[in-house]
C-alpha cells in the first residue's frame, strides 16, 4: 500500500482536483463523475453546496424560457463608501468582472413546468449575496411585474445580510422589498420563498421569511444574528443544529425542507394549488 500512497501523493494537484471533488460538508473525496456540477449536492452526505444564480435558473426554469429583467441595473455607490482596502465602487466593479454579474440578484420571468413565474435568484458570490440598493430595486421591480400580471413570485435567497457599504440605503431595502411582498399578499398573488445556505440578517429579516410558504434546502443555515455574535452575547456554546433549516422547521418557521433535486417539481406542485378565480 505504501507504493500506492506514494503514487497518490505524487499526483499533481491540478490533476487530482480535476478528478475528485472535495465535499465541503463531509470532506469526502467524491469522484467527479458522481458529483453533478449542476446540482452541487454531495452524493455521500447530501450537503447542498452553493449554486450560482445561473445554475439555479437552469435547475428551475424550463429550458430556454428565462427572460432576464433589468440586466442593466448595477450596484450603485450611494454613500461613496471606502474602507481600508479602498473604494466600494472598485470592489463592486471587480466582483462584477470576476462573476459576470452586476448585482447579487438576477431577476426575470420564465416558465416553470409550464407555469409563468417571476424569479429573483440571489448569488452569494456577489459580495456575499448582500442586499443593497440595486438588489432591493431589482427585487421590487420583479415583484411588481408579478403583481401586474398576477404571476407567482419566487425568490431564492442566499445572503449574509445587508451590504454595509451602502449603509442605510441597504437597510431600507428591507422595508422596500417587504412593501412589494405586502402588495402581493393583498392581491392574492402567490409568493414563495426558498431559503438556501446561508440566509441571514437583512434578508432573513425581510422578504425571505414572509413567503406564503417558506421552503428551505436541507442543512441551510438561516438566522437573524450570526452564531458567533450570539455566542459572544450569551456566553454559551450553541447546539450544532442551531439555525439549520431542520431547527427552523421544528420551531415553526419553515413549511418544508426540500432536496434540491425535488425543488422544481415541488414548486410547480404548490403553484398548481393556486386558483386565479
Amino acid at each position: 500500500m505504501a507504493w500506492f500512497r506514494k503514487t497518490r501523493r505524487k499526483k499533481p494537484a491540478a490533476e487530482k482536483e480535476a478528478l475528485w471533488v472535495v465535499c465541503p460538508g463531509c470532506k469526502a473525496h467524491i469522484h467527479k463523475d458522481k458529483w453533478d456540477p449542476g446540482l452541487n449536492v454531495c452524493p455521500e452526505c447530501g450537503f447542498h453546496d452553493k449554486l450560482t444564480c445561473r445554475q439555479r435558473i437552469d435547475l428551475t426554469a424550463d429550458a430556454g424560457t428565462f427572460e432576464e429583467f433589468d440586466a442593466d441595473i448595477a450596484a450603485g455607490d450611494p454613500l461613496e463608501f471606502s474602507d481600508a482596502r479602498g473604494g466600494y465602487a472598485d470592489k463592486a466593479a471587480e466582483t462584477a468582472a470576476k462573476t459576470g454579474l452586476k448585482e447579487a440578484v438576477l431577476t426575470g420571468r420564465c416558465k416553470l413546468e409550464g407555469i409563468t413565474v417571476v424569479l429573483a435568484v440571489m448569488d452569494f458570490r456577489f459580495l456575499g449575496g448582500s442586499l443593497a440598493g440595486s438588489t432591493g430595486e431589482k427585487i421590487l421591480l420583479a415583484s411588481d411585474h408579478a403583481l401586474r400580471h398576477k404571476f407567482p413570485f419566487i425568490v431564492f435567497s442566499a445572503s449574509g445580510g445587508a451590504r454595509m457599504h451602502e449603509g442605510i440605503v441597504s437597510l431600507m431595502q428591507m422595508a422596500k422589498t417587504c412593501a412589494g411582498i405586502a402588495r402581493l399578499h393583498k392581491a392574492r398573488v402567490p409568493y414563495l420563498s426558498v431559503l438556501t445556505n446561508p440566509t441571514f440578517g437583512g434578508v432573513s429579516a425581510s422578504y425571505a421569511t414572509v413567503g406564503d410558504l417558506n421552503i428551505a434546502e436541507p442543512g441551510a443555515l438561516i438566522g437573524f444574528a450570526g452564531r458567533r455574535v450570539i455566542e459572544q452575547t450569551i456566553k454559551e456554546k450553541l447546539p450544532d443544529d442551531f439555525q439549520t433549516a431542520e431547527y427552523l422547521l421544528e420551531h415553526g418557521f419553515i413549511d418544508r425542507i426540500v432536496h434540491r433535486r425535488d425543488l422544481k417539481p415541488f414548486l410547480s406542485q404548490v403553484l398548481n394549488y393556486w386558483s386565479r378565480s
Partner: protein
Amino acid sequence: MELDFEAPLGDMDARIAELERLNRKPDADFNSEIAALKRERDVRLSEIYETLTPWQTVQLARHPERPVFADYVERLCDEFLELHGDRCFGDDRALIGGFARFGGERIMLIGFEKGKTMDDKLKANFGMAGPDGYRKALRLMRLAEKYGLPVVSLIDTPAAYPGRDAEARGQAEAIARNLTAMAVLETPFVAVVTGEGGSGGALGAAVGDAVLMLSNAVYSVIPPEGCAAILWRDASKAPQAAESLKLTAPSLRDLGVIDEIIPEPPGGAHRFPEAAMDAVRDAVQRHLKRLRRMNVRRLVDKRFEKYAAIGKYDNRKYAQH
C-alpha cells in the same frame, strides 16, 4: 458622564463653578468674569456641537443621560396607558407601547425603552427587543388601525437582541412580518429616531410615513465598531467606519431616508433633555396634522412610493396599487 470631546467644557464649567463659589463671599464681585467665562463656554459649546464628527455623534446618540422612552412619556404625554403582551408568548420590556395623548392628539405610542437605572436597563435588556416585542408592536399597530389612531414610534435601540431564544422564536420572521405589515398599515405612522437607530432592530418598528430624527441621533445598518471589525479588520477604526457609513441625520436626509431633522439645542439632548423632547413633540404634531388630512389609500400609496424611491435605479414605474 463626560465624553472626551466635551472635556474643555467640563474645565470651563469647573472654573465657573469655582468663581461662583468665591462670588458668594461678602465683598466679592466676580460677576463680569463669570459672565465672560459663560459667554466663552457657550461659544466653545457651539463650536464643538457644530463640528461634531460622525463618531462623536454616535457617542452622543448613546449618551446614558439622553432622554429615554420613559422620559418622553413623562414629558410629552398627558396620558399613557401601556398595553402589554404579544398574545402569543410574552411581554417584551425593550419594545413597549400603548394609548397616549400627545399634545391633545390621541395616538398609539410605541418605542424602545433602554432604561435609566441599572435595574431598568437589565429589565429592558438595554433596549434590545426580541420577537415578542416586535409581535406586540404589530398587535398595537393593528389596534391603532382599528381605533383610528396614528402610530408614533420612538426609535432608540442598539439592535434586535442577538440571543439564542430570540432566534429560536423567530427574530428574523418577527421583524420581516412587521416590515410587511407596516408597509400597508392603514393609519398614519410617524417614526422618530431619538437615539440609536440600530439596524433591522430599529427598522422593525420604524416604517413611517414620516421618519424624523433628532440632530444627534444616528441610524445605521451596522454599529461602526462592527463595520470596522469586518471591513477594517480592526474595531478601533470605528471612527472611520462611522464616517463612511453616513449615519448622521444630515447624511440620512440627503439620502432621502429621513424627512426632517429635529434640532437639539447646542450641547445636546443629554444636556437639555426638555428642550429636545419639546422639539420632538412639535415636529411630531406638525407631521401628524399633515398626515391626518390624507385619505388612507393615498397615505399607503405614498408610503410605498417613499420606500420604493430609496435606492431607486431610474424612473421605472411601479404598478398603481
